[in-house]
């Protein structure tokens, strides 16, 4: 896959040399940030046909690696860079500079008929570890909890795993589904279910729970009160030169269009407009 992507990139590069004034931008990294980067790239390329922006999704670690080795202009990451990566970057004369382009919040959802309103982070973790297996133990009705989780591919799973599970393994009786939409459809049709979805997928057919006393919403995530949320980064080498293409790209999230795009994909913009 990666080889093919690189090949295609090369082809584009050579083809691109033929056109005068074509501008190149390449991004690599997290699969969570990928959709945002792609949406931004589409927007940029629509407005300027001479632009050529390639977005690869190979995971945060690879994003950092590509940025350090100079293989991409922007490294997309769903976690901050580690000390080790920083050190390696500096040794390669790269100064990684983070830009938080959006926030990612995950809501814990249950069936609307479920009397539960709020859970503690610790309780959510214990449910997913299988230590709590009946709603009765949480003061609810006597129903076995149907734990709905996501496949290990998913960026939402990755976030949940990091912020809630803290590297604990999800109990193997948990059901695994392939998308946020599928979690929603399982939870809205199953009375005893609990699931987690990106905030953008919460609607009236589900009940989002307060976690540690905070209800998940745009506001609580933006103010950083809601615990299951994290910033999403784009890393550049130094702060980009004002007015350059990279600069325009990593500050696009500040514009109204950029924020709308972020919200359309189900993430939360960092700034309220």
């Amino acid at each position, binding site marked *: 896959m990666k080889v093919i992507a690189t090949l295609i990139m090369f082809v584009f590069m050579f083809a691109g040399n033929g056109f005068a004034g074509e501008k190149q931008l390449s991004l690599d990294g997290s699969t969570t940030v990928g959709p945002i980067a792609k949406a931004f790239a589409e927007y940029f390329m629509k407005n300027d046909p001479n632009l050529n922006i390639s977005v690869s999704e190979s995971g945060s670690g690879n994003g950092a690696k590509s940025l350090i080795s100079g293989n991409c202009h922007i490294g997309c990451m769903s976690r901050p860079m580690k000390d080790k990566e920083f050190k390696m970057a500096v040794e390669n004369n790269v100064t990684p500079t983070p830009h938080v382009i959006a926030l990612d919040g995950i809501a814990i959802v249950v069936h609307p008929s479920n009397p539960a309103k709020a859970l503690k982070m610790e309780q959510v973790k214990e449910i997913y570890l299988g230590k709590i297996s009946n709603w009765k133990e949480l003061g609810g009705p006597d129903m076995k909890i149907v734990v709905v989780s996501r496949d290990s591919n998913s960026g939402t799973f990755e976030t949940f795993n990091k912020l809630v599970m803290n590297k604990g393994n999800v109990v193997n009786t948990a059901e695994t589904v392939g998308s946020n939409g599928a979690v929603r459809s399982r939870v809205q049709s199953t009375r*005893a279910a609990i699931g987690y979805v990106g905030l953008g997928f919460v609607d009236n057919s589900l009940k989002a729970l307060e976690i540690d006393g905070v209800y998940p919403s745009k506001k609580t995530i933006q103010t950083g009160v809601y615990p299951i949320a994290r910033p999403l980064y784009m890393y550049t080498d130094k702060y980009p030169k004002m007015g350059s293409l990279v600069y325009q790209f990593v500050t696009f999230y500040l514009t109204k269009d950029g924020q709308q795009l972020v919200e359309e994909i189900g993430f939360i913009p960092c700034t309220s407009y």
Partner: protein
Amino acid sequence: MKDSLIISKRANRLRRLASLLANGGLLTVTSLSMIIVIFIILFIARDALPFFKLEGFKEFFTSTSWYPAGDPPQFGAMAIFYGSLMVTLGASMVAVPLGIFAAVCLSDVLPFQVKQVVKPVIEILAALPSVAYGFFALVILAPIMQTRGPRLFGIAAWVALVPAALLAAYFLRGFVDSRIRNEKFRKATRNITFVMAIFGFFVIISRISSFFSGLTVVSGTNALNVSLILGIMALPTIVSVSEDALNSVGRELRENSYALGATRAETVFKVVIPAASSGIVAAVILGVMRAIGETMVVWMASGNSSQIPQPFYNFLSPVRTLTATIAGDMGEAAHVQGAPRYHVLFAMALALLLISFVSNLISEWAVKRSRKKLRGESS
């Protein structure tokens, strides 16, 4: 004369060249499919073997902890193998009896005009894309199972078992009939037996039915859901292949049987089905293969939890299969080429390939054996 000879010589050479080319072309095309199969096996094996080199065999086959993205990763696939087995068994329990009876009905019971309509309709089942089945299973069948499942199971128990009970009672009556010599005594006894048997069976059925009604279905995406849907998906294959087999038995055998005074039921069960058994076995194996290899439905509706159900025959528990695991874990794994997490999926694919290879061999063998047997009997 001389001229024409030369021309014909040249024409001959051309013709020979053309036939050589045509033969070569056909050979290439034919061997292409074989070469593709060989290459698929080679490439899958090439990516599967490093997994066993990195992680060994023990964990893969004996552990049920499947955490490929965990820290440290765990690759216990036993529960996943079990899930595949369970779903396949479930699907064949649905599809095999239904399929064979439907095939018998099509070939020996229904009049020709009705059959012309029914068979294509059954075959439409095969034309539906599997994602449509999966959507149905996830969005319609799963919620129904959760809300009304137990009551429906109760009804289904009646529907399935009443005909079986009647048949059994009838056979029991025949058995009693054949055992008692006394003429007067016999009539009374056999009728009493019949009534008693029916009564007994009904008590048993109502027990079973109320047991089913008392169950609670916690989650509608489970092994039963998938088994039903896969069974329906395997049905057209089984019906049409075994119907062809039953048809190819031919008129002579049937008419001979009738001429000997056999009833239609006797003819079907004692002559036609045994004669067509090789084709029926092939049909069943083809259908079962479809169930093993199906991915989309299983990924959407089996619940995908890598556990061995408690107790092991609990079809109301979510399970995870090999195919669904490959589909579900592929995306991210493609980015970690070389890691065990990538190779483990190929190990699973190799296992699937071996399973289908072995079952193909078994079906070949069964077909050959029964053909030999038939030939032996006829000669």
